[in-house]
Each structure stands twice: as structure tokens, then as C-alpha cells.
């Protein structure tokens, strides 16, 4: 087991493994998305309260969930990198940030579009989830700004790892404080998300979408980590050998 992890952490091994992994994540992910979208859009019955507008949750919920998950990847990757000095973990953290920011943006945009017919406004400060998500987007911006303003990669890795760990504690605090805050101001009824009462015909596509999104996230992450690894290892012998090999290494 330990040996497996050790090999996984070796950059050339990971670089090759990720390349074979990407299609295996990408295509099932796309299939699940297609199935989930079809069933979510056309098969699942309309919600008795929100009508067809609720179908936005099929993209909003997975995006919101992945925005958190990407942040966890950043924080955990950074933590592992700091404690065990594992360079691959830092590469994962660096790669997760832009993907997480993209999904956070998507969650915000879909939440806001959903708000238009439901609340009659594009932005409702009273909704704690949207507000937390906005703060999360700012946290991503801060993280990426810090990373890009430090030239030395090793230093950037460590500094942004500290920031991500501090940020993860903050995300929890933001969540609860914003919830408290919106309860003060009698926040509007918020987006209904799942729960035991949900019709299986509605729930199944949602689960498929969540799983599909996760696989796509994995594929995107693997692709970006490959780039990070390649760049960080640009002076090593294995990269040199790969580049000079007749068939190349993509």
C-alpha cells in the first residue's frame, strides 16, 4: 500500500498515469451529465411550488458542491505539502484553484438566474448560500492572486498552503455567521435542495449530475496537475528524455 502511494507521488509516474486516467474520467462523466440532463430537463416532473424553474438545481447544486470540494482539495493538498513536503500535493492544490473558481462562478451565476423568476431579483442578499458562495469566490481570488505574485514556486506553494488552511477554517465560520445574519433579516425562502421528500424521479438525475460533475472535475484536475508537474519538473532528466524521445510525450 505504502509503495503504491510512493509510486503515485513520483512525478513521472503520475504524469503518465494521469494521461491514461483522463479519458476514463471524462467520458463516463459526460455520459452521466447527458443522462442526468435529459432526465432532469424532460423526464422529472415539475415542482409543485417552483414549476420548471427548479430544474436549475441540476447544475446549481453540483457546481456549489464542487466549489467547496475544490477548496478542500486546495487546503488538504496544501496541508499535505507543508507537513510531508510532498511536491505533488502542492501541484494538486495549485491546479484545483482555477477549477474551483470556475465552479464557484457557475454556482453564483446559476443561483442568481434562479433568483430572478423566484425572487424577482438577480441578487438577493438575504440568501445565505449565495452570500457564502460569493465570499468563497473572493477567497479563490485571494488565493490565486497570492500564488501569482510570488515568483519562487516552492515559496508560492507554501505561502498559499497556509492561506488555504486559514481559509478553510474561515469558510466554516462564514457559513454559520451568514446563516445567523440572514435569519435576522428574515431571508427569503431558499432554494430547495433534495431532502427525503424529493421524488425519486427528481432525485436520480440530481445524483447522476453530481457524480458526473465530480468525474469531470477529476478529469479537469488531472489535466491541470499534469501541466503543473511538467512545468515544475522541467529541469529533470525524465522530462528531458520524454521531450527528446522520437514519439514525444504530449
Amino acid at each position, binding site marked *: 500500500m505504502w509503495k503504491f502511494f510512493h509510486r503515485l507521488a513520483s512525478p513521472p509516474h503520475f504524469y503518465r498515469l494521469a494521461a491514461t486516467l483522463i479519458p476514463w474520467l471524462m467520458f463516463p462523466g459526460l455520459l452521466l451529465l447527458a443522462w442526468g440532463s435529459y432526465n432532469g430537463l424532460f423526464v422529472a416532473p415539475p415542482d409543485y411550488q417552483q414549476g420548471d424553474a427548479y430544474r436549475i438545481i441540476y447544475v446549481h447544486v453540483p457546481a456549489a458542491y464542487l466549489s467547496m470540494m475544490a477548496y478542500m482539495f486546495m487546503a488538504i493538498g496544501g496541508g499535505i505539502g507543508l507537513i510531508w513536503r510532498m511536491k505533488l500535493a502542492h501541484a494538486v492544490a495549485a491546479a484545483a484553484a482555477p477549477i474551483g473558481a470556475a465552479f464557484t462562478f457557475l454556482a453564483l451565476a446559476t443561483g442568481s438566474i434562479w433568483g430572478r423568476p423566484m425572487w424577482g431579483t438577480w441578487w438577493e442578499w438575504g440568501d445565505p448560500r449565495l452570500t457564502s458562495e460569493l465570499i468563497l469566490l473572493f477567497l479563490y481570488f485571494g488565493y490565486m492572486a497570492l500564488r501569482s505574485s510570488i515568483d519562487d514556486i516552492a515559496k508560492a506553494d507554501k505561502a498559499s498552503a497556509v492561506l488555504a488552511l486559514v481559509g478553510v477554517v474561515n469558510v466554516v465560520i462564514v457559513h454559520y455567521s451568514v446563516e445567523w445574519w440572514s435569519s435576522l433579516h428574515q431571508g427569503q425562502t431558499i432554494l430547495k435542495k433534495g431532502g427525503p421528500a424529493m421524488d425519486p424521479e427528481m432525485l436520480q438525475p440530481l445524483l447522476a449530475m453530481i457524480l458526473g460533475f465530480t468525474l469531470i472535475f477529476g478529469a479537469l484536475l488531472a489535466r491541470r496537475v499534469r501541466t503543473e508537474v511538467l512545468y515544475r519538473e522541467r529541469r529533470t532528466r525524465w522530462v528531458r528524455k520524454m*521531450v527528446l524521445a522520437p514519439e514525444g510525450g504530449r
Partner: protein
Amino acid sequence: MVDIGMGNYGIYVWVCFGLTLIIVVLSDWRARVRHKRVYRDIEVRIKALEERE
């Protein structure tokens, strides 16, 4: 046939799904482009070094 318009909500729903598609495709495309660029830069540098030796 199903109702594409979904009452009055169709436009919102379709925009959301469209946006999702755009963001996923764009993310993947950008990641590919970045990888190619990094690879090419490294290739150029290594080959230049190789020729000098």
C-alpha cells in the same frame, strides 16, 4: 413532445444549462491549451540546449 418552453421558466433553465456547458468546455479547452504551451516552451528550451552541446 416535451415542453421546451417550460412555462415561463424555460429561458432561465436553458441559460443555466448553456452556461454550464460553456464553462465546462472552456475549462477543459484552457487546460489543454496551457498544457500544450508549457510543453512546447520546455521542448524549445531543451532542444536549444541540446544543439548547443
